[in-house]
């Protein structure tokens, strides 16, 4: 994937496969498969004890990142969360420096200094994952400000969960963006849990999108397991931003299959197997493949090739990462300051 962004042709209200050409569908598929494989492999490596620290994995939520990034170019900025691999991959980050960073090696995106939660690639507008809940939102507002300041046509998009919608930084950033009318899109990936607490226990509203009205900001809710639906909703928000109409909040209802961190994580039950299985039945990748096949827009071979290429890419990147050198201890205080 050389450049993010698709043809952005669909304008209809009802998400259908018609209106999206094969290229668009394959593009969405590729983004989702790359996330799925990367995260599955990362989870496997982590729970085998091969990676230092811990990971927050995006498996299950692929449609949100894929659909959202498909509306952006490399000049548009995103900020992400602690669960940021999906956003990075969908924006176009490469597997080799991502895996190398997870292993803490010098060839990682942060040269081993940041780890999973600080993966970034400024060349493709990925301003970093973030270990502090909600901290990326004000930063994205700043990135949007820079575009407004320079009048360069770029926008910023920021991701956050239902849990983060309770933190002060969300409210401040939303209000600030609305008042200053900045070109930013707030994408809430509502997976129903704030770490281990279900949504009903941490807020009284059902839709995070309802909060946007408090700031005079428009919003919409979409199906976070349907990449096309996500893409269309985000496109509307992006178009508004580019037109100078200010921010929008898009809420995508989605689900993560793995635990809050790791795969099985802390292995203390707080969700039911039934719930997980129910969501898996609506798996976003399977959904896209089935619909594309049913409508005859793209064929199974094309999809199979994407899976195959991605598995190969992943295997190559893991080998690369494991061979990458450890950072030199004498450089421990490097890059604290810019010269």
């Amino acid at each position, binding site marked *: 994937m050389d450049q993010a962004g698709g043809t952005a042709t669909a304008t209809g209200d009802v998400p259908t496969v018609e209106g999206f050409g094969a290229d668009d569908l394959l593009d969405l598929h590729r983004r989702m498969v790359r996330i799925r494989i990367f995260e599955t492999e990362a989870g496997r490596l982590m729970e085998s004890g091969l990676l230092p620290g811990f990971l927050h994995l995006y498996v299950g939520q692929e449609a949100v990142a894929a659909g959202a990034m498909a509306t952006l170019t490399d000049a548009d900025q995103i900020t992400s969360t602690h669960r940021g691999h999906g956003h990075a991959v969908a924006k176009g980050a490469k597997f080799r420096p991502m895996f190398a960073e997870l292993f803490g090696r010098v060839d990682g995106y942060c040269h081993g200094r*940041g780890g999973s939660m600080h993966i970034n690639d400024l060349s493709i507008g990925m301003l970093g994952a973030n270990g502090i809940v909600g901290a990326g939102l004000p930063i994205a*507002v*700043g990135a949007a400000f820079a575009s407004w300041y320079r009048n360069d046509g770029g926008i910023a998009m920021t991701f956050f969960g239902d849990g983060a919608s309770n933190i002060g930084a969300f409210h401040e950033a939303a209000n*600030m963006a609305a008042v200053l009318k900045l070109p930013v899109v707030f994408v809430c990936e509502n997976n129903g849990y704030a770490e281990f607490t279900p949504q009903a226990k941490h807020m009284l509203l059902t839709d995070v999108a309802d909060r946007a009205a408090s700031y005079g900001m428009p919003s919409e809710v979409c199906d976070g397991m349907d990449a096309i639906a996500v893409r269309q909703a985000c496109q509307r928000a992006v178009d508004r931003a580019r037109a100078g109409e200010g921010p929008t909040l898009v809420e995508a209802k989605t689900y993560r299959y793995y635990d809050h961190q790791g795969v099985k994580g802390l292995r203390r039950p707080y969700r039911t197997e039934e719930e997980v299985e129910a969501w898996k039945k609506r798996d976003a990748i399977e959904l896209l493949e089935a619909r594309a096949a049913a409508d005859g827009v793209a064929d199974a071979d094309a999809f199979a090739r994407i899976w195959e290429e991605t598995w190969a890419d992943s295997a190559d990147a893991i080998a690369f990462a494991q061979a990458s050198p450890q950072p030199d201890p004498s450089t421990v205080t490097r890059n604290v*300051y*810019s010269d």
Partner: protein
Amino acid sequence: MAVRELTYVKAYNEALQQVMREDENVFVVGEDVAGYGGVFRMYDGLLEEFGDRRMIDTPISEMAIVGLGVGAASRGLRPVVDIMFMDFLAVCLDQVVNQAAKMKFMFGGEVRVPMVVTVASGAGLSAGAQHSQSLEAWLAHTPGLKVAMPSSAYDAKGLMVTAVRDDNPVIMMLNKKLLGAKGDVPEEPYAIPFGEAATLREGTDVTVVALGRMAVEAVAAAEQLAGEGISVEVIDPRTVQPLDTETIVASARKTNRIVVVHEAVTFGGLGAEISAQIQETAFDYLDAPVMRVGAPFSPVPFSPVLENTYVPDRATIADGCRRILKRS
């Protein structure tokens, strides 16, 4: 190169005006900075000159204000973020300490955060416990941040020019009791390097290292003590991160007795860091333990009688010098 008398706040304002003229990327964001010119008049006249694209008034949202600065800086702009009272940094410390200070490091060097956060600090105006603090110890302790504490109009302008041109997040600690202090300020822009202390007065009997407004008090104390036959050397570090340890230690070796004074609470204040650095490098040159003069361990009291006892001044500094020199 004309030199004329300006107030400390006007010198800051002039610095900002000049760097905004020289670099298109500099903008100011904060509460009441544009239309009102800032509650301390720091931003007077700038909206008129630079317009509302470069002077941004915001809602009361410190996290969002600093975050906006972080995001904009990471994209190559040079924000000056005004947080009014230093005490309010506590409201948005995450964006300062976890985001701005650490992004360069966490990203492996791939980003710069050339942001200035201007705050008004210090006690002595009966502003109460939540509007009077000097919190440089928190920030100097955070790798990735730089911290400047100008004590004069001349320093306010020169350090601000450097701060804006620096590619790192800088906390510019203006002292609210010094805002009206007058001093000679050259007309043209000039940059005082960070990490270079100023020796405000040379002496031989005792060294006083004084942070921020205490430098003014220390010079007054030195003048008083000169009349008593005591020769006091006064050093103003000007920035506490980076800290000019070399100048301080050289002075310690010369006078053999050191008093460190700051408005901040003594316990855990930067006097302890400076003291430790002196004894590490000049232990054999000390005739007395390094003395720290700072505020007692309590929040800043409101009543003027209490606040006067609380905040160090020229009398307490002079008294400290006499005590450290006392011989029987």
